[in-house]
């Protein structure tokens, strides 16, 4: 897939911005706070129905306006064009998504249809943050290639909430009454069956994903650092285990933790407490690595995500790279840009052209877009300003 054009109205600091894109690299250049990232955010609305970082749509509407509107033309791999429109009405706090003339009501049906791989400063939590951040990363990647997984994950979350309600009541009363026990039993069984599905799917995913990470790493780093991604589920599991075997282990662990669960008032065993361990040359990334190594690892994960999705979705994903150069040394930056823009259409924000050095030749497939004060400006205007 390629994004051919986009129009932004009342979108953050863009009052009325129209952009045409090139098929390989599109560098968005400008000083801090001029609206480069806002363009990436608009593309995220087009492809994912939502922002990649704003938690609520209201903050995206330009100050003093009551709606925003993003339109775009996507060129799919097999040649058809699709026009997308996302509009948000602040008065009713409602976002609407249209493909052509047709309104899409269930946003989740769009996930994975127009795949994008985003690398932004917010992503640093994947390597720096908590296990929950890493679970979110793999869940999102699996979801983009498997809608069934989204469904299973939502069902698991709902089951967890139901079961926790009983446990929190028990914690309040400091005991599990006979009636509570009868209530808990079916939800324990439901948690086990639904949780085992998630565990097995994640185990299978990480086994498939690991070689992609190694390959990506080899492509962007010269000195042979060896990355590893390992699934560390609370309930030991190999991808070849049967569902029944995982369920049995799960049941037993819940049994052992029963007293603690009643004390804390929450479910203590399950995929909602899994960890995904990242390491470099056998050392834990979280504990032993430098800022630059973290960033490189993250880039490796994102490139791996690209190849993983490319093979499983019907469309080639588009790269959105927001401020990726900040912690990388020059050789790594140059290699990264050169490598990525050969794979797919790429949108890169940067404060200055100098970071590209000789990695990009500006031509029919590669362009610089200068952004100032929420609008595209010509290179000459940029220099004279």
């Amino acid at each position: 897939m390629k994004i051919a054009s986009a129009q932004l109205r009342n979108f953050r600091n863009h009052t009325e911005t129209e952009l045409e894109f090139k098929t390989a690299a599109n560098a968005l250049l400008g000083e801090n706070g001029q609206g480069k990232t806002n363009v990436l955010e608009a593309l995220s609305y087009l492809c994912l129905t939502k922002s990649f970082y704003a938690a609520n749509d209201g903050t995206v509407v330009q100050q003093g306006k009551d709606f925003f509107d993003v339109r775009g033309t996507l060129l799919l791999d097999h040649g058809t064009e699709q026009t997308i429109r996302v509009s948000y009405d602040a008065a009713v706090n409602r976002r609407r998504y249209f493909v052509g003339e047709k309104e899409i009501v269930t946003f989740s049906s769009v996930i994975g249809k127009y795949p994008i791989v985003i690398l932004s400063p917010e992503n640093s939590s994947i390597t720096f943050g908590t296990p929950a951040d890493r679970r979110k990363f793999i869940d999102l990647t699996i979801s983009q290639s498997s809608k069934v997984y989204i469904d299973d994950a939502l069902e698991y979350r709902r089951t967890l909430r139901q079961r926790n309600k009983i446990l929190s009541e028990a914690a309040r009363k400091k005991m599990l009454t006979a009636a509570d026990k009868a209530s808990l039993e079916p939800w324990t069984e439901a948690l086990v069956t639904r949780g085992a599905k998630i565990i097995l799917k994640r185990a299978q995913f990480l086994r498939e994903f690991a070689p992609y990470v190694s390959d990506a790493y080899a492509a962007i780093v010269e000195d042979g650092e060896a990355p590893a991604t390992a699934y560390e589920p609370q309930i030991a599991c190999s991808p070849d285990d049967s569902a029944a075997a995982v369920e049995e282990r799960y049941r037993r662990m819940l049994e052992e933790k029963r007293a603690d669960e009643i004390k804390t008032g929450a479910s203590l065993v399950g995929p909602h407490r899994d960890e995904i361990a990242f390491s470099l040359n056998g050392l834990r990334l979280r504990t032993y690595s430098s800022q630059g190594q973290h960033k490189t690892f993250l880039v490796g994960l994102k490139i791996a995500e690209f190849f993983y999705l490319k093979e499983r979705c019907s469309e080639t994903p588009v790269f959105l790279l927001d401020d990726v150069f900040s912690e990388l040394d020059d050789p790594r930056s140059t290699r990264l840009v050169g490598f990525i823009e050969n794979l797919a259409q790429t949108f890169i924000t940067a404060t200055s052209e100098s970071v590209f050095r000789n990695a990009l030749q500006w031509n029919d497939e590669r362009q610089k877009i200068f952004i100032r004060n929420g609008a595209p400006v010509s290179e000459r205007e940029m220099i004279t300003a």
Partner: protein
Amino acid sequence: MQYTSASVEQLVEEFSQLPGIGKKTALRLALYILKMPRERVASFSAALTNVKEKVRYCSICSNITENDPCIICSNPKRNRFVICVVEEPNDVLALEKTNEYSGLYHVLGGALSPLDNVGPEDLKVKELLARINDSLEEIILAMNPNVEGETTTMYLSRLLKPMGMKISRIARGLPIGSDLEFADEATLSRALEGRVAL
């Protein structure tokens, strides 16, 4: 806002307590009733009182009824060897509309949902167990295909399995007249899971 009639105000209040009715609709309904002929208002209000006075729960299947046992439980033509378990009375109506099912029903009165304070004790499970006897051949579980319904299905099937009769659940899958290519992935994968041997 100030009402010029306390009776209208009270009626608006009552209407707006109903599910799906806001203040505006309530006011419109109240004014409409004001314009209705006296006889129609009387029959409307009688219908409201009747529903509360005459309708009760069938002592066998827990469905809503005016005569105990209900017309389905007391119908000699129904197949007494099969019981279909559903969540709510409207599920019985839905199944009856098919004209394909001639067995008996059992209405649980909901599905397991701790978040709504519904546990096994709050459903008509004991009543279901009391109906089980040696001549019963099959129990069909027909819960809604959501987390709560599925968990209730799981719970009942574990409870009923040891009792020896056949336990089945209604299939989850594709709507009639639809195309495979337009089915959403979750439905399609469930349909695959529940495939039937030929």
